């Protein structure tokens, strides 16, 4: 059982790599395209995967940030995420994982309750972002946000680490589960 570990490789020079994990390839592709349009001092690499574990024996760079994309319209998408999470080492969850829920805008197509993803993100102590990836404007904004997060997670922002960012996000955004 191969597990992704955050520090098992040396970083590439000025390179930041993000891994997007989700069942709907078209959405991931669009998000990747939006991210790469951003102006960024670091060299960005985007890896797209349907699920984990990733194929072995492949030469890939160190992964700085994993984003699990969950489509609230699809139980299959949630199931896929839950199974993939088992293949991520716990040390990744110190700020290098985040959840992205899409489809909340079309409420009548949502079959996964918002509470479910909130609970999932809380269990893994990771931030949860909502964005309707099919809407271009929202997607562009989210892409910007993810690029900044990625740069921090790759250590390209002096003075800010992934763990710093995690604490910042937690205190200002996510209410605790008991409050819901």
């Amino acid at each position, binding site marked *: 059982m191969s597990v992704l570990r955050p520090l098992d490789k040396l970083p590439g020079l000025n390179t930041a790599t993000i891994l997007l994990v989700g069942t709907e*390839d078209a959405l991931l592709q669009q998000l*990747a*395209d939006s991210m*790469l349009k951003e102006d960024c001092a670091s060299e960005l690499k985007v890896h*797209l995967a*349907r699920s984990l574990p990733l*194929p072995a024996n492949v030469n890939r760079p160190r992964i700085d940030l994993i984003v699990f994309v969950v489509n609230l319209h699809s139980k*299959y998408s949630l199931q896929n995420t839950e199974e993939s999470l088992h293949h991520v080492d716990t040390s990744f969850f110190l700020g290098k994982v985040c959840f992205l829920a899409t489809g909340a805008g079309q409420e009548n197509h949502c079959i996964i309750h918002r509470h479910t993803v909130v609970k999932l993100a809380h269990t893994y102590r990771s931030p949860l972002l909502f964005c309707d990836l099919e809407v271009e404007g929202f997607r562009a904004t989210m892409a910007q946000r993810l690029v900044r997060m990625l740069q921090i997670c790759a250590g390209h922002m002096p003075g800010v680490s992934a763990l710093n960012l995690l604490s910042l996000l937690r205190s200002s955004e996510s209410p605790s589960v008991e409050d819901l």
Partner: protein
Amino acid sequence: MDETIAEFIKRTILKIPMTEMTTILKAWDFLSENQLQTVNFRQRKESVVQHLVELCEENNASLNDAALLDIICEDVDLFDMKQFKSSFKKVLQRALKNVTVSFRDAEENAVWIRIAWGTQYTKPNQYRPTYVVYYSQTPYAFTSLSTLKSNIPLLGQALTIASKHHEIVKMDLRSRYLDSLKAIVFKQYNQNFETHNSTTPLQERSLGLHVNMDSRIIHENAMEKERVQRVTQETFGDHPQPQLEFAQYKLETKFRNGSILAEREEPLRCLIKFSSPHLLEALKSLAPAGIADAPLSPLLTCIPNKKMNYFKIRDK
């Protein structure tokens, strides 16, 4: 005329039953009206045949003409359109007295029938007719759904009797598109698929998904994607799917997970309906879009093969 051709024509004509003789000879259209009138069809068969062969000799029949006669004879099920129409009309009129039946011949041995239904005491309602298309060379007829339930058995009876079949079976296949129904029923939908060894690489045939050119984007699960494409193509083929709008599953099965519902004695009744402007294309795109696993459930993929889109599922 060659001796062998004469012999051939003689044997071919001998095979024709006397009741069909004039019909076939008229269909053959080789001997003229006048010539046929000179033949006494009430004689013994051998004499009739002899006379006919002599007439063929007069006209100098060629091998082609003989072959044509043979083809016409092979079509034993010589469908008589006139007879079908009159028989169909008679059945309905005998039962209902007030009924309007109209026919229109169409391509490919198809006849369109329009029926306006009345009863013994009321005139036919011209605003709610039933339309039927019958393909005479096949055992299939297609009808519109606007028929009152009470008239359906009578319609079935009329079709069965007029087409000289033994029984009529209602298929669980419905759609708005007659061409799609035809495609499924006559198995014509995969005629565009020419060879199994297509030379276009899998990448190019990828069902419209955006093929990425940016080298900074890496697809980790390329193998899995290829597998999904391959399985989808094996299941649905390369050709465009016939157009259906619904698939309906009536379930009467026991609940199967470990919960309280599984302890019920009686089966649960449940109706699942899939609807789409183009159901089969939608199903085909499910796995490549990442919404479902490939291969799909056979309950979904069997629709064109089984020629059904309305299913009843019970526990065995």
